[in-house]
C-alpha cells in the first residue's frame, strides 16, 4: 500500500489533502459561515465616512466629474474601486490589515482585530497582508486628513522624508488634484476602521502619543469622535 500507485494516489494524494482541507479550511468556515458576509452596498449603507464628503468639498469639479454627488451609491462605488486599486498596486504587500493582540500593537494602532470585521466582500480574498514595510492600515480611518493623503500619494517623501513608499503620481490628474483612482483609494483608506464605535486611533496611549507629536493632525488635543456605524459585536475587545 505504501509503495503502490493507487495507495499513493488515493491516500497521500486525495486522502491527506481532503483531511487537511477539512481541518484547515472547512473548520474555520463552519465557525463563521453563519455570520452574513456584507456587500459593499451594505457597508456603505451602514455609514459613510465624512472624508468622502470632504473630497467633494475640496475638489468639487473633479468629484462631480468622477462620482457625481455624495450618496451611498457613489460611496460604495468609491470603496469598491479603492479596494481594487489597493489590490492592483499590491499595497497589501507592504501594509497589513490586522492588529495583533501582541507586541503592543493595540497601543500603536488601536483595538485588536476581530474576525467579524472581515466578513465582507472587500475582504475576499482577505487582505491580512504579509509584510509591514509601512504601518498597519486597518485603523487608518481619519488618522490623517485627506490632503495629507493626496500629498503623500503624490510624493511620500514630501511628508515623510524617511519613507520608502512608492510615489503614486498617477492617482493625481495634471493639475495635481486626485483623479478617480485617487479619490477612491483615499475613501477606501479613510474607511478602514471607521466601523468601530470610536475612531480614529493614534499612538495615543503610550509615551509616544500625540502629545509627543504636536505636528500630527489634532496634535495632542482630544480627538473628534464620530459615531458613524453601529458597533459590531466584539469589535472592541482588548
Amino acid at each position, binding site marked *: 500500500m505504501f509503495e503502490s500507485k493507487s495507495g499513493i*494516489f488515493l491516500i497521500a494524494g486525495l486522502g491527506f489533502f481532503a483531511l487537511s482541507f477539512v481541518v*484547515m*479550511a472547512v473548520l474555520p468556515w463552519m465557525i463563521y459561515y453563519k455570520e452574513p458576509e456584507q456587500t459593499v452596498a451594505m457597508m456603505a449603507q451602514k455609514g459613510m465616512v465624512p472624508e468622502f464628503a470632504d473630497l467633494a468639498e475640496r475638489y468639487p469639479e473633479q468629484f462631480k466629474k468622477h462620482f457625481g454627488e455624495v450618496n451611498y451609491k457613489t460611496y460604495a462605488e468609491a470603496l469598491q474601486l479603492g479596494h481594487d486599486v489597493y489590490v492592483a498596486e499590491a499595497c497589501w504587500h507592504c501594509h497589513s490589515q490586522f492588529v495583533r493582540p501582541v507586541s503592543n500593537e493595540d497601543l500603536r494602532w488601536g483595538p485588536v482585530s476581530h474576525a467579524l470585521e472581515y466578513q465582507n466582500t472587500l475582504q*475576499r480574498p482577505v487582505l491580512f497582508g*504579509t509584510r*509591514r514595510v509601512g504601518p498597519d492600515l486597518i485603523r487608518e480611518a481619519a488618522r490623517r486628513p485627506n490632503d495629507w493623503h493626496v500629498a503623500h500619494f503624490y510624493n511620500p517623501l514630501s511628508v515623510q522624508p524617511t519613507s520608502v513608499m512608492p510615489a503614486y503620481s498617477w492617482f493625481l490628474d495634471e493639475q495635481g488634484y486626485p483623479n478617480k483612482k485617487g479619490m477612491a483609494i483615499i475613501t477606501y483608506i479613510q474607511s478602514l476602521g471607521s466601523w468601530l464605535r470610536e475612531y480614529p486611533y493614534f499612538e495615543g496611549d503610550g509615551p509616544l502619543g500625540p502629545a509627543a507629536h504636536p505636528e500630527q493632525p489634532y496634535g495632542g488635543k482630544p480627538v473628534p469622535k464620530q459615531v458613524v456605524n453601529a458597533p459590531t459585536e466584539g469589535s472592541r475587545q482588548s
Partner: protein
Amino acid sequence: MTALNVSMSPPASSAVRPVDGLVDRKLALWHLVASLVFLGVALLAGFSFSLQFLQKYPFPGIELLSPGRWRLVHTNGVAYGFLANAFLGCLYWAVPRLTGQPVYSRALSWFIFWAWQAIVGVTAVGLILGHAQALEWGETPTYVDPVAFLGLILVAVNFLTPIFRAKGPMYVTLWYFIAAFVWTPLVYAMGNFLAQYLVGGAAGGAIGGLFIHDLVGLFVTPLGWGLMYYFVPIILKKPMWSHGLSLVGFWGLAFFYPLTGIHHFLYSPIPLFLQHGAVITTIAIEFVVTTVIINFFGTLAGRGDALRTSLPIRWFYTGMVFYFTTCLQCSFQTTLTFQRLIHFTDWVVGHAHLVMFGVFGFWLLGSILYLFPRLIGAKAYYSDALNSWHYWLSALGTLIMFTDLLVAGVVQGNLWRNLAPWEESLIASMPFWLIRSVSGTMIIVGNFMFFWNLYKTWQMTVASRQTQPAMPGTSPMPA
C-alpha cells in the same frame, strides 16, 4: 569538465532500457530555456523593487512600472515562470526514463509548452496592467486562473499516464511525482476559486494560508525532492542509503505538510485552536525533514569528493543544507513566541528567499547544469570557471541575503514592539536593505554568467556540429 566527469556512464537501470527515443530532448530543452528567461526577468524585477527600499527606484512615477506590481512579477515569475518550467523540463527527462514509457502525447506536450508560456506571459502583463488577485503567490489575474487550472490537469494527465502504464515496483521519485500531480491542481483550484468566490473573511484567510503553504509544500517540494531522489543516486552512482527512511520522508511529508497552512496567520482573527494545531504540525515536519536529510547525507557518505568534483552535486547538497536550515528556522519561527517578534518583518522575507532560491532554485539550477549539455549534445561547457562563479556568487549571495534579512527582522520587530515611531524602523532597516540589494546583485551577476555560459556552450556545439557532423545515433554526452 568538473561538472560532468563523475556521471559519464548511465545508471544500470536505464542501460537495459532503450530510453533514448523516449525523451523529447528539444521539448525538455525549451522548457529549461524558458525557465531561465523567466528567472532573468524575475531577478531583475526583484532587484529593482529592492531599490525602492533605498529610495532609489529607477522608474518613479510611471504607472506601468509601479514597484508594487513588479514585486508581483518577481514572485509569480519565480513560481510559475522559473520553477514550473524548470520542473517540467526535468520531468520530461526523468519520467520517461523512470517508467520506460513515453509521456501521454507529444503533441499535447508541445501544446502544454506553448500554453504555459502564454499563461505566464499573460499573467505578467495582467499584473503590470493592474489585474492582480489579492491572493499571495496566486496573484495571477482571475481570468488566467481557469486556464492555468486546465493546464495543470493536462500536465497531470500527460505524466500520470506513463507512470500508471509502467509495470513493476515504483522508485521513490515517482511517489513524489504522483502525489504532486494530484495535489497541484487541487491546491490551485482551492486557493484561486474558493478564496476568491466563495469564502471570505477570516475563514477565507485560512484558505489563503493553506494555498500559499500548499503551493510550496505540495507542488514545489514533492517535485523538488523527487528530482533529488532521481539525480543524486545517478550522479553518485550508488543507491539511496535507506529505503525505509525514504518511506518515512514521503509519508511524513504527505501527512503533515498540508496541515500547516494557518501558521501563516498566527495571532490573526482565525480561531486560536486552529493556529495551535498548525504550529504543532509545522514542528512535526522538522522531524520528517531530518530523516530525509539523514538519508541523503547517508547516501553521500564515502563519496564526499563528489562535492568537489561534481558541480550539480554541490548545488544539490548546498540546497539540502539550506533546506534543513529553513525547516529548522521554520519550527522556531512558527511558535507563538517567535511570532510575536518576527511576524510581518523581513525575517520572513529572508526565510522565503532561502526556501525558494536557496533550496528549490539551487536544485533546479543544478539539474539544469547537469541536463543542458546532455540535451544539446555538448561535450563540455564553454567555461567551467563561469559555472564556478555562478555557484559561488549564488551561494554567498543567498547566504548573505538570508542572514541580513534575519537580523533586520529582529531589529524591526523590537523597534515595533517598543513603540518607536515608524520612521525609526525605516531608518534602522536601511543598511540591511542596502546589503540585501548588494547580495541580490551577486545572485543576479552569477546567474547571468551562467546564461552567458549556456549560450556560448550552445554556440560552440552548433559550430562543432557543422565542422564534423555527429554520427547518427551517438550522442556525445552519454544520456
